[in-house]
Every structure is written in C-alpha cells, then in structure tokens.
C-alpha cells in the first residue's frame, strides 16, 4: 500500500488562495486505508479549509467527493462535471492520483497529501516502510526483510558498524534491518544464506534508471 500524510493546512491554503470553488477529491484505495485521504479525511479537510478561509474573511465553496481510485483514467473521468464547476482541484490521493487528475483536466490540481512510502501497517494507526520499489526483489535471500527499504544505508551484505543492540545508529527507534535479517535467518535455519555475498546491485531497475513503465502486451491495446 502507498502511504501518505496530510500536508500542513497553511501550505494548502497558500495553493488555493486565488480560488474559491474547490473540488476536494479523495481516493478509496491506499490513502483510505492509511487514513490520509479517504471519505472521512475529505470531510475533515473540507471543514478545516472552510473555517480557515472564513477566518481570513473568505467563504470557500468546497465540493467533496471520493473516487474509487484516482490513479485510473476511467474513475477520474467520473468527476468531469464537478471539475468543470470548480476553480481548482485539491486531491487527497497519492502522487499518482494527483497526476492522473492533472493530466486529465486543464484546471489547477493541488496535492493535499505528502505521499510517503510503500508500507504496511504495524497496528491500528501505525504504518512503516517496507518496499522501495527497486525493481529487483531480493527478499528471497534476506529472510523476507528488505535491506533496501529498511536499512538507512541500503547495505547489501550485513550491518554497518553503527548497528548496536539491534537498532540503527541513525534513528534509535528503528531496528537495524540486518539485525532483523540475521535473527530471522537463524530462526529459519538459513544462516548460510547470510554468508552468500550479494553482488553490487544494478540500480537500473530502480528509479535510478529513469521513469519506469510496465507493459503487458497481452492486455495492452
């Protein structure tokens, strides 16, 4: 899941300052699950924007809507008439959704969220980063724990010298990914995997190789 967090209200107010008719658009996928941009958050933000604007003497008209998914053109198409009646769109989707909207409509589209990472939920209300989207998954040899997403230094062959008592030297409340990997491999009886040297990673499959694209020839028209 893609996780995100709401931007400070002040920043949003800055974006929409010139406009008074706003379409506030949520997304019922990842950002709903991470409580950042679902129907509920749309409602809260709408209230907050209206009140903040009113404070500076401006009455905002906000239309609230939440799409099934903002990163698909068909869903995005649904709001054409709403967009037509708005001066600007504030999207509560992840960056993908914002761009989908921006590509489709010739109206200003502003992000309400800072898209953070691909992660999972640890427990109610807590999410942490699990995947960096490197394009060449090596979880198979690291005990199911990703050293790229979860090691601050993206080390491939064991911890750095800063790992102490199982925690990372950069952020002490983050566990050292390599410590976790070792414990996990020990648990699985696969410590020999650890000894296997992982060669230097080819980052072309990651973002380092420029924007990526997936084409399924059987599906693509």
């Amino acid at each position, binding site marked *: 899941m893609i996780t995100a967090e709401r931007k*400070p*209200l*002040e920043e949003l107010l800055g974006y929409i300052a010139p406009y008074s008719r706003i379409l506030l658009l949520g997304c019922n996928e990842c950002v709903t699950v991470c409580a950042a941009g679902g129907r*509920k958050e749309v*409602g*809260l933000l709408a*209230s*907050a924007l*209206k*009140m*903040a604007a*009113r*404070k500076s*003497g401006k009455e905002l008209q906000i239309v609230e809507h939440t799409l099934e998914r903002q990163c698909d053109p068909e869903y995005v198409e649904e709001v054409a008439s709403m967009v037509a009646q708005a001066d600007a769109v504030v999207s509560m989707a992840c960056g993908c959704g914002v761009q989908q909207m921006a590509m489709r409509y010739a109206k200003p589209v502003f992000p309400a969220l800072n898209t953070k990472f691909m992660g999972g939920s640890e427990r109610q209300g807590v999410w942490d980063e699990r995947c960096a989207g490197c394009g060449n998954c090596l979880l198979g040899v690291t005990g199911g724990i990703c050293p790229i997403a979860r090691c601050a230094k993206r080390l491939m062959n064991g911890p750095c010298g800063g790992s102490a008592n199982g925690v990372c030297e950069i952020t002490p409340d983050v566990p050292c990914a390599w410590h976790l990997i070792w414990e996990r491999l020990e648990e699985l009886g696969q410590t020999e995997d650890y000894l296997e040297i992982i060669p230097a990673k080819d980052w072309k499959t990651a973002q380092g190789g420029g924007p990526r694209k997936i084409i399924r020839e059987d599906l693509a028209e």
Partner: protein
Amino acid sequence: MEQFEPVIVAFCCHYCAYTAADTAGSQRLSYPVGVKIVRVPCTGKVDAKHLLTAFEKGADGVLVAGCLVGDCHFKDGNVKAARRVEFTKKYLEEIGIEAERLEMVRMSAGMGREFAETATAITEKIRALGPSPVKGKNCCCGKAA
C-alpha cells in the same frame, strides 16, 4: 454591550454524562443556557468530523463528555474519544482556533453537580476567549440563538 453568551455543543454519552445532565436537571442545578446537548450512545461514537462541523457551524466551544476511565459501557470508547479529541485539537490549531475551545471531560451518571459545574466552567472559559474566530461574517456575534 450585551454579555457574550457562548454556544457550546456537548456530545454526551447516554450512559454517563447525558444521565448526569438529567440528574443536574432533576436537582435543578442550573448551567448556562448556551450549553446544548447532543446524545450519543458512547463518546466512542463521536467522530472528529462532528467536532469540526460543530465549529464550522458556529459553535464557540465543544465538549465531549464521557464516562470515567474504566467505566465505559463499551470498554474503552471514552479512551478512543479522548485520542480523537487530541487529534482534532491539533487540527483546530492549524485552522487557527484555540484548542482549548474543545474539551474532553469524564463523569459518572450520578455526577449531576459536576455536569453543571463543568458546563459552567467551560462556558466561562470560552466567554473569556470570546466568540469563535471562525463564526460567519453575518453571525449575530454570540447572542444566544
């Protein structure tokens, strides 16, 4: 000038604070007339949206009144409500509304006097703060509706 009479929405749990307000009534313990009660089955039902909407519609203050810690009819609805109140307070600050306009209080069904006292105290506090900064331009500036 007429004294500013704050409008305060009190979300009251049916099992405790709502009953406490009834008790205050039956004991004729007066509290300010601007305090208006919305009955909920549990403060756990009170959504951040309800709190923000109350302010948006012009409330000067909002009270969430739940059971004493450990007394929730539904285990911990009051604890969850308190977290939501804290979350909403941060939102309020971003908007530019004093966070102390929103308050979570706890009481038992028998505490009619406490209800009246709390309602009076929060009214006085809000009176001191003045009308909500986000009331509409045409608002009647705090005259009790």
